[in-house]
């Protein structure tokens, strides 16, 4: 086992050296809860909102970008999704709240692939679900009077045909 351990150390050392020699320009993202996350410039490429800012500034120094709407928890989830090449399996493991928040952030940072993926995942979750389920899912407060709701259901009667209320 000892031999194997040394070999592993050597591999890690080599990796660290390689990374240093590449000297990739890093971007610092500051989240809403004050955590600074350093990411590679290639990661930021997909975040079109930040990319547009970077194209405009064009500096050689490392860039600090505040993200007041994004928590460190959500940002790390996004990083995981990106490094996992947006695997559907990873998306399935997200909680509903995480999914909604990531969708918002994807929209805010203009990340097209991520927005498409999370929006379709949410659509999947609410498909064929009852009105009550969808209200609960989006935290919607029903502000219709019972009469108004009945009236609306009548207006679009065809759409409610064959829908199970559970």
């Amino acid at each position, binding site marked *: 086992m000892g031999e194997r351990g040394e070999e592993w150390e050597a591999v890690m050392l080599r990796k660290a050296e390689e990374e240093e020699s590449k000297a990739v320009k890093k971007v610092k993202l500051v989240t809403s809860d004050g955590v600074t996350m350093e990411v590679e410039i290639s990661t930021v490429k997909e975040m079109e909102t930040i990319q547009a800012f970077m194209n405009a500034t064009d500096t050689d120094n490392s860039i600090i970008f505040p993200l007041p709407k994004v*928590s460190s928890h959500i940002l790390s989830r996004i990083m995981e999704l990106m490094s996992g090449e947006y695997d559907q399996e990873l998306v399935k493991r997200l909680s509903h709240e995480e999914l*909604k*928040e990531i969708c*918002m952030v994807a929209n805010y940072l203009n990340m097209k692939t991520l927005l498409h993926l999370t*929006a379709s995942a949410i659509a999947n979750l609410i498909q064929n679900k009852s009105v009550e389920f969808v209200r609960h899912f989006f935290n919607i407060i029903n*502000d219709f009077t019972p009469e108004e709701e009945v009236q609306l259901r009548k207006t679009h009667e*065809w759409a409610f045909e064959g829908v199970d209320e559970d």
Partner: protein
Amino acid sequence: MPIRGSVLSCFCLFPFSVSPKGKIRSSGKNDAFTVSNEEQIDRISFLPDEIICHILSFLPTKEIVTTSVLSTRWKTLWTSVLTLDFEDNWPCFFNTTFASIVGSILDQRKAKSIKRLCLHNHNKSFSIDLIGTLVSTAVSQNLQELDLFCYCYLEVTLPNTLFTCKTISILKLSFGSTINLNVISSIHLPSLKILHLYLLYLEKDESLMRFFSGCPILEELCYEEVKSNNSTPFKIFLPSLKKLHLKCHDKRVQIVTPSLEYIQVQETKVCDSLVCNMSNLVKALVDIYFDHCEKEYVSKLFNGIHHTKFLELSTYTTEVLANSSFGFPEFHNLVHLKLCLSTIDYCFLIQLMLTKCPKLEILDIDKVYEESERKRTQPRITLVPNCLSSHLSVFKFREYGGSKDDLELTKYILKNSKVLKTVTIEMEIWLEAKKASEAMSKLHALLSASKFNKLSNSLSTFTLMYSISSNI
């Protein structure tokens, strides 16, 4: 006890794992997801309208309309969704009722464009005029994606404007009836990238050739069960095409695709349809069947795809290849070979194929089911293929049943591969626990034996998987 000692050390050296429940996934990154993070997440009181409309755009229109009763804010949100999706989930309406509903939806829509129009109808009577009206409305509103799947039993004529639509990038057509393209005066689809033609009968082949010549940047073509009443051979030339899915019994069709990167030939009665040498090919999935008089076509097909990096052969294809003395060309770029097998006595075929794939790194075996064992009829190949001594690093075997052939193949690979790094063997799902444990102990023995042969220098992961099925 030197033998036992070596078995133990093999357990220590390899991250050897037998999972009683389901598959083992690579550890690392993904684990973060399973650890539920109880950090305070700001609950979103609501998502902006823009995002809600985006989410709703993935749903059928019928369901989108039902969101109007959620709350006053949602009452008219559905009218801003950019898609119209009439899936086959409509209650049984009379034609006129459906037409009036569609009319009222179009009247109420606030969205300025129809990005996607989808109309699926398997058995209801749709009026063809309604299809035409919907398509022309969508075309006039910057249509990007059209998906028509209707069984009309009547001849269909689509509006002229569809065939000169500048914005459309995805077009999927399936009618199960005759489509008349001859009356279309001009075809020019400058943005069309994806075209799926499925179950179509064409009046004339020329109309199809004219159609394709009007798609200058077409990248993906799905061509399934397209027929016409002509009998002369014809050629489709698609220089920009990257991805092709072909399911065609028509021997007259020839598809020339010099830039192809992905090809899937499915259930195709082997024909002359693929004629060029595809030098950019990356991935090829072949599911064909043929008899002895068609060998010539088979060699043409394999010669056409021999540049590919990834090759997958279906069960049936592997079986007929094993039984015919067909000369397989050399696949000089092939890195990943996936074989679906049901046939017994496949060792010979695999050995034969390995000699034709000098750069093979990944061998993927997928057993479909096990037949009773027969006596061997094929000779063995004594020469070790080059790929085994210098390239093969991954060997995967799914649905391992523990038969003589299964064991022999695994033994052959373990014994002869010099640079093998990862071996993954998944036990057959319905295998009895007793048989599975027998098979696994045989594999353990094989592994420790190969350790003696210094194979362990390169092998770093050996994984056996066994899911306990519900029938035990």
